[in-house]
């Protein structure tokens, strides 16, 4: 069902399309959410001892592979945007699904990693390090899932050549999800 857009939606006093503007504000609010979580983590870690020993149990390889996977998927979404701009809807569709595939590999990887850790007793209640580990990665994973769902919805519009501009919008969001991980990876995996 198509929803009749008000005139307001298509006005652009700033020159920036409204959709793009909104995505940036969403990202702004997300930055403060993750920022609050990570600053809490840093403050507690700085002023308490014993966290390094806990952090030593994280598997840097899993983290590194996931970093690579997520960065690659970001490349796909850039290419998808390029294809959408060029009006090549089938190519854009394929590239969006490659991005979703990247997200899926990321999540599968994470599931394997977490299963191993949980079976070794490294659970959320073990210590505050692990509480942060699961909370931060879990919150990030929720964003990965949300991005994948939105991309799947957008992809079928793209196939019909509708709302092609939304490829760029989800791309911006996906980069943000990527960058959050770039913060999580060193803080949770590398710092030992």
């Amino acid at each position, binding site marked *: 069902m198509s*929803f*009749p857009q*008000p*005139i*307001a*939606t298509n*006005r*652009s*006093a*700033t020159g*920036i399309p*409204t959709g793009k*503007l*909104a995505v940036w*504000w*969403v990202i*702004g*609010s*997300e*930055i*403060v*959410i*993750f*920022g*609050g*979580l990570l*600053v*809490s983590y840093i*403050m*507690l870690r700085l002023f*308490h001892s*014993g*966290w390094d020993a806990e952090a030593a149990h994280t598997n840097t390889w899993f983290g590194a592979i996931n970093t690579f996977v997520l960065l690659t998927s970001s490349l796909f979404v850039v290419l998808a945007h390029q294809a959408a701009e060029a009006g090549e809807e089938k190519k854009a569709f394929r590239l969006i699904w490659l991005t979703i595939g990247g997200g899926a590999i990321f999540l599968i990887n994470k599931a394997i990693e977490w299963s191993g850790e949980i079976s070794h007793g490294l659970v*959320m*209640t073990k*210590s*505050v*390090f692990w*509480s*942060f580990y699961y*909370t931060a990665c879990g*919150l990030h994973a929720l964003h990965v899932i949300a991005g994948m769902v939105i991309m799947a919805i957008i992809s079928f519009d793209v196939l019909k050549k509708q709302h092609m501009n939304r490829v760029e919008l989800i791309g911006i969001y996906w980069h943000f999800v990527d960058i959050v991980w770039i913060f999580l990876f060193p803080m949770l995996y590398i710092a030992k």
Partner: protein
Amino acid sequence: MSHAEHAHQSIWQKYIFSTDHKVIGLQYLFTGMFMALLGGFFSYAFRMQMAFPGKDVPLWGLVTAGEYNALITNHGTIMIFWVAMPVLIAALGNFLIPLMIGCDDMVFPRINRLSFQIFFLSAVVLLASFFVPGGAFAGAWTAYPPLSSNPDYSLTPLGSVLWLIAVALEFVAFLLGGINFITTMMNARAPGMKMYDIPILVWMIVIASIVFMASVGPLVAGAVMLLFDQLFAVGFYNPAKGGDPILWQHLFWFFGHPEVYVVLLPAMGIVAEILPVFARKKLFGYKTILYTAIATGTLSMFVWAHHQFVAGIDPRMANVFTITTVLISIPIAEMVFVYIATLYKGSIEFSSAMLFALSFLVTFLLGGVTGIFLGASASDIYFHDTYFVLAHFHFTFVPIAILAVFAGIYYWYPKMFGRMMNETLGKIHFWGTIITFHLIFLPLFYTGAAGDHRRIYNYDNFPDLAKPYMNDLRIIATIALIFMLLFQIPFLYNFVVSWKKGAKAGKNPWNANTLEWTTESPPPHGNWKELPSVYRGPYEYSVPGRASDFWPQNEKA
């Protein structure tokens, strides 16, 4: 526009699942008003316990210690999150932003509807918490751990979880709404409306939304952490497990103090719209007000730890926060003085809206001045957690969430419903509210300074505080509260009866300049038959050389 296709909407689509910003605004308003009655009733129940401890309270019964705590907790929670926020930001923002900037709706009408639905759900969750085993959360609206995180202490295993979920949902609703407000103001303005042509209220709601967005994030994260503490006994806030309960206080107040300004700024905006109209004078210092508001919003992010002077923070930090806290009184005082300057040599008409707007300035000034004693860490150590604090923040929040809101309702009611409210009833309501308000809270400054602690349920157990003259003051405050609540009856009567029987308002009953007064009252779907263009600023009143004393923004030359 698509008038024809909207004509066929069912009542269900038109009033319940509407995407029209005006309907959503009114949904927020009515939900907020309902919650205000509830919050007011709660205050009646616990104030009766304060004045007449251990006696049956009419309409409630005996207030037990647990109930007392649940009542004060939810009174605070409701008044801030389910009254001040929805009415000041969401109701007025939704109703007025598109009308004031001259467009047909919000830029994202469906996100707007989703925002209200989430908000409504959050209110339902909060109310549901009263009916679960153990009852509603009773750990104060600030929800400090371990009282909020450990059910062994709170004795409300389900109530605290539901409270937290309700508050978190409410945040989500206002984040969605806020993004809508900000993008709408940035992009959907009428042709010709430049930055300094935007009515101050729109600016204030948008600045408030940005401050909200910038400050609530850490608390969203903090709420997730608290939820895990509650549900899985994780130790984020538990020192025994390596966590820190003070962390919650930082996360809470990093949001909680900017929140004061999040609700203050729209209230200031309402007053800025009303003063020029009823003084028939141009708003003094538009840019000063705008930049002062931005400065206030920015500075408000750096004052939060003044809530924690006695929580064991580093005294050197306390000095820093004392300075920032006292600093913030400068932009606020500046704003109040600029408003008073607007009145100077004006031709003032004391309508109900104007009376409420003026009373806002006076009472808020008193609230601000008493805050200086609390912002300074040395005197705060004595005053902390006493009724002095309580009286202080009611002297700020009541002007914001009650007086300014009433000013706004009396002023925009004709636009919302197409009819005028009765002025006589309005004035009875005004004097009844303002006098009783002072009779409630002035005595409480005194009892607070004399040592009354906020968290005491029954002063009979504290002989030093249960002296007759102290009890008398508590009784005066309580009786004044009952009268204040009763004086809302003329308002509610006026509100309901004027809807059908008030005098027809016409397009512009106040001879005001802003764009909302250039369309029908109430505005049709799509707001204007032809969307307006803007040729000047919003406050051109009594311009020398013009025959009429106002000059609507959309009037060519």
